[in-house]
């Protein structure tokens, strides 16, 4: 963190020159959202659901391979899921309905199916979003959201957050280094008397920096809108490339619905 380019937020990005890296960011956002929608729309209790999940998994792993995202990077992306794995593991134990015996535990059938479905869907979406984050720079993502007509103020807030997250994070890190080099070990509640003021002064510094940034922008002619160049025209070919993932996933879902 901090060392090199990109800092905290850029850490998700893996430099490369694959077709996935070259695609316009808003196409990638549409593609990942479309893929997530198809995954979510798959009925959990259908007998062919697991075949469909397998198909989606093959698709998303294929995209990751094309994009040059290594399995280790994908696995690290999955760590965010852990709290929900715990929740999903509890479902078969607490859910109602007919029970089955698995390894001596009496588990609910519907709970098992639901937990499995939840985990599969969450995992697939996390994988797709990880590929997106690994192939798109944060500032490109903002540009993509702008082209998808996210309200301009929200885009600007996002832009400032991206630009200053590393500065604010860096201040936090310097405070921690300063604390710890003076022998601070925060292991008990009393440490709040040190950490609270640290976070408080971080807020004051962030807010005051915001005021200075605003004044600097005003002196450079800021009128409440950020200037942006003309949007590049996206060729139909690029749309096709981007939409290959959600369309293929949609085909898997459709064949499941028709044949299953």
């Amino acid at each position, binding site marked *: 963190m901090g060392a090199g380019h990109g800092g905290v937020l850029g850490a*998700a990005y893996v430099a490369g020159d694959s077709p996935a890296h070259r695609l316009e960011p808003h196409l990638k956002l549409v593609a990942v959202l479309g893929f997530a929608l198809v995954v979510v729309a798959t009925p959990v209790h259908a007998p062919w659901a697991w075949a469909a999940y397998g198909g989606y998994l093959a698709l998303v792993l294929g995209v990751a391979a094309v994009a040059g995202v290594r399995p280790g990077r994908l696995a690290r992306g999955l760590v965010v899921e852990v709290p929900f794995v715990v929740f999903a593991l509890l479902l078969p134990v607490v859910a109602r309905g007919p029970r089955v015996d698995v390894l001596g535990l009496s588990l609910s059938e519907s709970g098992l199916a639901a937990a499995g479905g939840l985990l599969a869907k969450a995992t697939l*979406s996390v994988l797709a979003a990880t590929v997106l984050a690994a192939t798109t720079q944060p500032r490109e993502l903002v540009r993509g959201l702008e082209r998808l007509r996210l309200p301009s103020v929200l885009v600007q807030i996002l832009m400032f957050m991206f630009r*200053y997250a590393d500065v604010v994070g860096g201040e936090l890190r310097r405070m921690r280094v300063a604390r710890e080099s003076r022998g601070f070990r925060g292991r008990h*509640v009393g440490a709040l008397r040190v950490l609270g003021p640290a976070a408080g002064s971080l807020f004051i510094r962030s807010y005051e*920096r915001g005021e200075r940034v605003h004044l600097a922008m005003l002196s450079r002619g800021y009128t409440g809108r950020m200037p942006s160049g003309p949007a590049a025209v996206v060729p139909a070919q690029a749309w096709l490339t981007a939409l290959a993932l959600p369309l293929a996933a949609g085909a898997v879902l459709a064949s499941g619905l028709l044949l299953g």
Partner: protein
Amino acid sequence: MHVPDGFLDAPTSVATGVVAAGTVALALRGARRELDERTAPLAGLTAAFVFAVQMMNFPVGAGTSGHLIGGALTAVLVGPWTAVLCMTVVLLVQALLFADGGLTALGTNVSLMGLVAVGVGYGAFRLLRAVLPRTRTGVLTAAGIGAFLSVPASALTFVGLFALGGVADVPLGTVATAMGGIHVLIGLGEAAISVAVLGAVLAVRPDLVHGAAALRRPADLARRSAPAEVGVR
């Protein structure tokens, strides 16, 4: 803990998405009242602060540590509308860059951690401010209780949504008790951290705290009577 894709059924996700979009639209107008044309840089920097402070681990006793969620604290610091925008932007970044919280569940997450956490936290804060004495302790107590309530409130809202649109048939009482119980503990941590942070800001720059505007008094610059003429004659 962010809701991932596929956790709630489509109608519930769509409904929370509409609620979230409406909330953000209102917040965009409201934030302009709180920050006028400074909205973008100040809300952006505050969002960066929320993001950074969520990475900071605070000890909550017994060797465990937690981190701040920050909805109620941010609302007291910069005002509720700006806080909703900051939480929304932080959630969007977490969903896009860290896959933390699903894209199709973004509306649900914004409703839970933007609308409910900020709304309940700030609502309780304002109610208590009306009753408690107008002192520093009053502000801190109100903010602490607001922060405490905001956490179980959003957890129980999540349980409610799960009851409406969850994909498993779960006895609701059990889940509500478990989620409520855990989040009461998390809420205690949230309250302690919020009060510690707010107390520090109040000590240094009380003028920056939106929720403590009532504490602000013009500096006491009473004219002193002219010194008696005791010159040398």
